[in-house]
């Protein structure tokens, strides 16, 4: 009962803060977008040179530090890692690739839906399909292997990087890129964005809010606990948008969006499948990074690398749509994800062993 109340409150706060952040300057329907914000950070550090999406987003810094401080306080901080780090890096890259085709992480998909962007309605079933593919692997024994306890310094790496980013943001040295136009130039004031990140970091650490877990648990066990948080984000953001005049229903000319339905759908299928295989949606990866899980940090770094890859090679979606090369990336991503899924699935491996035993 208590857990249910908390997850609904956490979801509601995320929805409300998202509306406030947009009112105060964030790009439309982008109060929170973990993929977009990591992409912006990647650009600010010069890893890609898409001039309109470069900014050291304080929300990301806040999410990691909020989770870190809370985990320390409740003694849940634990440095762990070593569970297939290279594959996790790739899963992060692919998760970002799918998100940059659709133009948003699962959280932004919910926020776009709440803002009346019906393209997100096309993407949602794609996301659910991706998570469903993921559960097929889970049912057959997919695992990236157990993580091991590590020296504490491994766990501090993520929060340390967040603090370095914060220092770079405040001091704004010449080698950091800040967009002068486009979404990267739009942001609510620092105290709001950082504060919102910290608050959501605290709440998400306490409740395990996860947009992938919400769908996965429904499919696997008909358990709707995390789904309540997912619904709360949507309901509160939608009410907030209606009250503040930010609700603009339709497909065409939505902010930072395109109307290529097939690629909106399949881009989010990539994100859903990658999130199940990586054990959490982009936001959850940041929270786990704050809790000391270096496996999650690797996934986040993979996302930053993925953003650079997508923008440097002109693969990311844009309001004009998805380029042919971007379309190929979706197909290649799905193939790679199925290979990673199958290669780490016990029953498939066990079947092969049986065949070998029979043959001998």
């Amino acid at each position: 009962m208590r857990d249910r109340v908390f997850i609904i409150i956490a979801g509601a706060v995320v929805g409300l803060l998202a509306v406030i952040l947009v009112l105060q300057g964030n790009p439309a329907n982008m109060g929170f977008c973990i993929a977009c914000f990591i992409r912006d950070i990647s650009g600010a550090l010069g890893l890609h040179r898409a001039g309109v999406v470069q900014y050291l987003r304080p929300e990301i810094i806040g999410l990691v530090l909020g989770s870190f401080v809370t985990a320390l306080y409740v003694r849940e901080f634990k440095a762990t890692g070593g569970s297939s780090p290279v594959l996790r890096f790739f899963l992060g890259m692919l998760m970002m690739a799918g998100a940059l085709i659709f133009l948003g992480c699962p959280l932004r998909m919910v926020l776009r839906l709440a803002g009346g962007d019906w393209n997100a309605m096309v993407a949602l079933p794609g996301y659910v399909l991706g998570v469903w593919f993921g559960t097929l692997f889970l049912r057959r024994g997919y695992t990236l292997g157990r993580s091991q306890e590590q020296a504490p310094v491994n766990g501090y790496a993520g929060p340390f990087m967040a603090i370095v980013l914060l220092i770079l943001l405040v001091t704004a040295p010449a080698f950091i890129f800040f967009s002068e136009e486009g979404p990267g130039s739009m942001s609510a004031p620092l105290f709001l964005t950082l504060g919102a990140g910290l608050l959501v970091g605290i709440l998400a650490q306490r409740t395990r809010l996860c947009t992938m877990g919400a769908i996965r648990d429904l499919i696997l066990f008909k358990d709707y606990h995390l789904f309540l948080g997912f619904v709360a984000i949507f309901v509160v953001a939608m009410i907030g948008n209606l009250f503040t005049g930010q609700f603009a229903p339709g497909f065409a000319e939505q902010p930072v969006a395109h109307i290529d339905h097939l690629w909106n759908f399949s881009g989010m299928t990539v994100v859903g499948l990658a999130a199940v295989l990586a054990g959490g949606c982009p936001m959850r990866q940041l929270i786990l990074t704050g809790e000391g899980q270096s496996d999650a940090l690797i996934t986040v770094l993979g996302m930053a690398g993925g953003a650079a890859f997508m923008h440097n090679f002109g693969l990311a979606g844009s309001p004009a749509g998805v380029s042919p090369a971007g379309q190929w990336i979706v197909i290649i991503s799905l193939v790679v994800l199925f290979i990673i899924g199958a290669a780490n699935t016990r029953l498939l491996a066990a079947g092969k062993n049986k065949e070998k035993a029979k043959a001998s």
Partner: protein
Amino acid sequence: MVSSCYITFPTTFFAIRAESVLKNQPYSFKMVPVPRSISSSCGTALRCSCEDISALKNILLQNDLELEGFYRLEESGLKTPVATTLDLDH
């Protein structure tokens, strides 16, 4: 005050196996996310009545399942649930 018992697993795979192993057994149980007061990680647990937990544990072990831990959780309304680790000679 409501009390129920939980079995946790090292990976989701074993949780799903446990569900299929126990499906035809005369015990009532439900697969749920690991309660927040037991762990901050997002695994899946088996919730059952505390009278049945030993029997369920034995069935699962006989079927070569890997189990992680056993817990009793006391819940009362909006108060913080209290989790205690059970020692079942595992």
